[in-house]
């Protein structure tokens, strides 16, 4: 129970970090750098937090990473270079958009495969259902026709 309590307190502290949303006022030499800063800080995960990107987290490490990001952007590094720099230190864990290599290939391919399977399923189902419809247009017997008329009249009456 104590552990759960500790975790809960930790959770509270971390959650309040989210609402704290430390707002830094970095100056950028070019406006497009600011746009890239916003985008990259949403793609990088805070290594310590409970699933937050570095833009939204107040943890000290997130602040440090934002400062590092700012430095790297001002130094003229490209997006890929910056991300690689972070990954070299913190591992793949720190990227919210998994790179295509290795295990993550499955992640990116899965939706495509699912969709293709789905399309195949739809086509097969449509084919089998449509085939049946050709063979179903039997004529109604007189009795059935009379019943049908009566039912239709009743339905009109009700609505």
């Amino acid at each position, binding site marked *: 129970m104590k552990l759960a309590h500790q975790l809960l307190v930790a959770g509270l502290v971390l959650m309040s970090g*989210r609402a704290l949303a*430390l707002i830094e006022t970095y100056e950028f030499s070019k406006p497009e750098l600011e746009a890239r800063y916003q985008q990259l800080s949403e793609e990088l995960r805070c290594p310590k937090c409970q699933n937050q990107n570095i833009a939204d987290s107040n943890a000290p490490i997130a602040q440090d990473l934002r400062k590092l990001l700012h430095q790297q952007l001002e130094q003229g590094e490209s997006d890929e270079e910056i991300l690689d720099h972070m990954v070299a230190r913190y591992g793949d864990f*720190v990227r919210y958009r998994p790179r295509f290599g290795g295990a993550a290939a499955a992640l990116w391919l899965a939706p495509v495969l699912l969709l293709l399977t789905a399309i195949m399923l739809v086509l097969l189902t449509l084919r089998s259902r449509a085939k049946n419809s050709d063979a179903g247009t039997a004529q109604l017997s007189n009795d059935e026709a009379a019943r049908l008329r009566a039912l239709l009249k009743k339905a009109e009456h009700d609505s």
Partner: protein
Amino acid sequence: MIPEIGHFALIIALCLALILAIVPAWGAWRGNSVAMALAPSLAIGLLVFVGISFGCLSAAFLQDDFSVKLVASHSNSLLPPIYKFAAVWGNHEGSLVLWVLILALWAAAVALFSAQLPLLVLSRVLSVMGVIAIGFLSFSLLTSNPFARLLPGAPVDGSDLNPLLQDPGLIIHPPLLYMGYVGFSVAFAFAIAALLGGRLDASWARWSRPWTNIAWAFLTLGIMLGSWWAYYELGWGGWWFWDPVENASFMPWLAGTALIHSLAATEKRGLFKSWTVLLAIFAFSLSLLGTFLVRSGVLTSVHAFATDPERGLFILVFLAVVVGGSLTLYAFRAPAVSSRVSFAWVSRESLLLCNNVIFLVATLTVLFGTLFPLLVDALGLGKVSVGPPYFNAVFVPLMALLVPFMGLGPVSRWKQDAVARWRSELAIPAMAAVVCGFTLPLLHAPYNIWVALAVLLSSWLVLGLARDFWQRRGRLTTGYCGMLIAHLGFATCIIGVVATSQYSVEHDLKMRIGESKVLAGYEFRFVDLAQVRGPNFMADEARFEVMRDGVLVASMSPQKRRYLASGSVMTEAAIDAGLFRDLYVAMGEPVGSDGAWAMRLHYKPLVRWMWLGAILMAVGAFTAVLDKRYRRQRDVVHSRSEAALHGA
């Protein structure tokens, strides 16, 4: 004393649930109507005792009974009474009691409003709900007892409810969400009942549909509220993060949307039966999976209620029994309930099939993405993170793919239709949609291709609906109006989401009193700074005036609060809400020593459309339930039973 009564009531409820799970089901198996007839009373009894238990827990919170451990860790004497009540479900143990309460509510509702349901079906449905109740009640009593006491040595005061949760949103968001999640248990129970009985006809779909629609509507509202709450409470202007817990609520919604459409086909044409049954099982299984993910610590999330692997194991076993059991039943019994109804390539059925399939792919994609980090770790392949960049990249195209079919749906005919007819009906709406897509985005600089695409798709939906509405204007039914409103809601939602994602402008900067900043044509001027006191906090409050074209548009007062009981600091953003745009100001930290503060300013166009769209979807679903045909049944049964009574 009261907590003990509450505890005891919960135990009685468990006993009732046990009887409910076994006796009526046995009765249905053996054709014993006495046993079957017990089901409604047991369900109501379950509600009574869970209600008593919930009442006792609420009393403990409202009376500041800090000898109850839960109250001591989540409440405080300074907390306003309404939040003391909301604190009942602002934690793991209490939220479980709420879960069971809502389950009991649904079961009692089914018991009371099912006059036309044969006793055989009703008893099975309620028994299944009893099984689910057993799971949650025993989970609560055995691992997460809300009534545990801290005696001796009860603290003088409690630790306070997390300030983030001290908000009207907290009061409604979980109950609505649970009404949805738990509501799918009714559809699930109907599906199991059908499999057990080996029979599934159109009347089954007619019985299931209202319950499923209502549950779906509540879930829609619950998710929408969660998004809205995050937006105004968390201070960073975001409204969806694809967090595992958020996904845990979204997946049942996606599966549920497929389900309500599939039910329509089953009701109208008696097809997709085994598909519908599987979807019902799938939707509720996702609800249970969500419960597991949120409480087991298997995935990291800011939202997680508890991170206890032991509790997680309990839920996993329960999940395995319920879902494994129902899927096994499905594997053996599905042939008994499937249909071989035919339809043409071009027909409403095929469009519904496409709809089902797309939603299924979307659900599975979100599921896979959410569980992927766990999968990779379990296979020993390292640690990866999957976040919004991935989910947005894969989810948005799927929804875009859906919309063309969605536009055709209402216009199409059952069984057999013709492309030529579609062309003639929808040529004008289609062309008008293209025109809208090109021109309407010009209203807002800069021109954005994604917004243009979204406008095109939404206009396609709206104009198609308008055309169809005009066609049918003499013979509208409530069910049709419900569909109309819900689909309009979806179109509105699309616009809101895309416009806000593409056109939002955000700026973080240092501001001193007297300074101003222009953002998207609005001038934000930092006018004043004051100290204010709330019921349980102290705050620095900044005053902003927002001008546009020299006219005062809004006065905004964001706050930086320090809560007295816990000492935690929170930013309370100021939002000027508008139908066409939101202005958003949040305070950061003081910077330097000259009275400057870091401020975050946002301009968010059309963001409310997203939530309004969700509300419309829910309204549409509720409207559809009011359709005559669900009520007429009762009249038919009523008149039939009258006739029987009078020996006609």
